[in-house]
């Protein structure tokens, strides 16, 4: 049985106060293991992104706990939590959020630079990861010169450059055509997922479901079921 990477219990998040209070997530709990590619799926407004933000240490829940490799992340101070995210979690944002004024290699190196690594050493490591995603020859270009799929791969390279244990992908195929989306997620499945890494993907793109180990469904802020269990479960 693989070790547990993420353990979420009783996660609840609401916005507003009094009569205007709206629950985005209600008492959600689940585990995700190393070596697993977990999808959180559901319609728009179901609370997927809010859940993703809470388990990645970005949005503080009103109730519940998130343990990553045994660490209660919401018990950490702000600075400690930022450092935890920097070292343990990799993010691939829906809109990539690459820096157009930096080169592709510099974009990828950002997490290492935030870790106070030497500039040249960080760029060297970034080049290795650009090679992994097949974009080494575009390292000097600014991201705006790349296609959508290439930008997505740059974002993936940036997410893995600090060797995080947890990788969070938010709607990774939202800005891509169907075929490119499948290629990207298939690539993540084959090359990025390892026994020591857990990948959580929020999506409502059913065309990429085939790459998931497990799919949990959300609706109205609650987990409403498991669409597919782990193959080895």
């Amino acid at each position: 049985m693989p070790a547990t990477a993420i353990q979420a219990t009783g996660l609840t998040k609401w916005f507003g106060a009094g009569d205007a209070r709206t629950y985005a997530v209600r008492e959600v709990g689940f585990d995700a293991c190393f070596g697993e590619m977990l999808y959180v799926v559901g319609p728009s407004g179901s609370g997927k992104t809010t859940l993703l933000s809470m388990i990645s240490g970005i949005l503080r829940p009103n109730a519940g706990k998130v343990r990553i490799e045994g660490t209660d992340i919401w018990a950490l101070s702000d600075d400690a939590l930022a450092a935890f995210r920097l070292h343990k979690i990799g993010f691939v944002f829906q809109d990539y959020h690459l820096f157009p004024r930096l080169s592709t290699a510099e974009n990828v190196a950002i997490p290492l630079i935030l870790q106070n690594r030497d500039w040249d050493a960080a760029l060297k490591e970034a080049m290795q990861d650009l090679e992994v995603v097949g974009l080494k020859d575009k390292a000097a270009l600014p991201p705006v010169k790349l296609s959508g799929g290439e930008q997505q791969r740059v974002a993936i390279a940036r997410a893995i450059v600090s060797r995080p244990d947890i990788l969070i992908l938010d709607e990774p195929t939202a800005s891509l055509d169907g075929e490119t989306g499948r290629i990207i997620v298939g690539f993540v499945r084959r090359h990025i997922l390892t026994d020591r890494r857990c990948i959580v993907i929020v999506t409502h793109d059913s065309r990429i479901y085939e790459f998931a180990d497990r799919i949990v469904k959300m609706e109205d802020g609650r987990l409403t079921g498991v669409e597919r269990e782990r193959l080895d479960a």
Partner: protein
Amino acid sequence: MPGILKIAYKLLANDRARFVALLLGITFAVFLMIAVTSMFSGTLKRASATVINLGGSIWVMDPSIQTVANTIPLPDYVLDEVRSIPGVKFAVPVYAGAALLKLRDGTYQSANIVGLDDASLFGRPTLIAGHIEDIFAENAFIAVKDSEFHKLEDPTIGTDFEVNDHRGVIVGIAKVASSGLFGVPTLYTTYNRAIYYIPNMRFTISYILVEPKTPADVGTIKRQVAAAGYLALTRNEFIAKISNFYKYETGVGVNLLLMTVISFIIGLSISGQTFYTFILENIERFGALKAIGATGRALVFMILFQAAFVSVTGFGIGVGLCSMVIWLARVYLPDYAAIMTYPNLGLAFGMVVVIAAVSSYVGVRKVLTIEPFDIFRG
């Protein structure tokens, strides 16, 4: 340079249009602030030209004196009284007044006449042609070769002119540290010739220049002169008094202040607005950095670095541009009175620091309020 600052630098400098706009804003503001204050400093220096050129540790004058040009003659006994004060090494009279010269071609030209003590010639200028002892020759005057020299028809030794129906002859050409404020040439002669050639009131001493025996005697001399009903100021105090008169009692200071404030507001508006737009454009990226794991401190550091970099660079360019303009102006306009002083540069730098602080404060506030969650929500 730490990596995070390198990122901050590249985000700023690689956004060429905005970077140039920021630099232009700061440069323009610095240029205006320094140009205005330099012109004022130049004017103030020239207003004290007589004091600077004559030297003298202590100047004794009528208490109503506001500038060195507006003399109120002192009775002769004041000179004797000052000479009798313990601690006075020596005291000499000096004449400073205006005269109308009739030049060789028949035209009239106003001039400043400085009459030096006949016995000591204390305060005499450095001669670049002729000999100082020739000042004792008949009708002798020494012309100062400053920016107004040509108004005397570029005289040489031997050139003569008329002053109040007396003949005057140039016996030497001198140089001085500072030209005068009012755009008229200056002639030196002896005190006795000055008061003889130029119509005067009953009293003739414009100022008494005093040299104390020791610096400790200055206080005693000032007190004793005050007890006699007159005013004794050190050279620097007199320069400050003249400066304060122009600053606070003529409206020139208010105009300068207004111009400086306007320059500051222009700089603040352009730079503040551009920097804010720059931050707004990059706000999602700052949010992404925050989500990835950058601390608020690191982001603040980045923004402060960007504001400081653009401010210091703009300040440097502004100072360089202003220096160049002053240099060029002096090439074509010898009368151009502008000097850059350390206080002027300090004032402009202080203003730039305020511009940078305000701009970065706005940026920091914006960046610190961005929630990484908003990045996820898109």
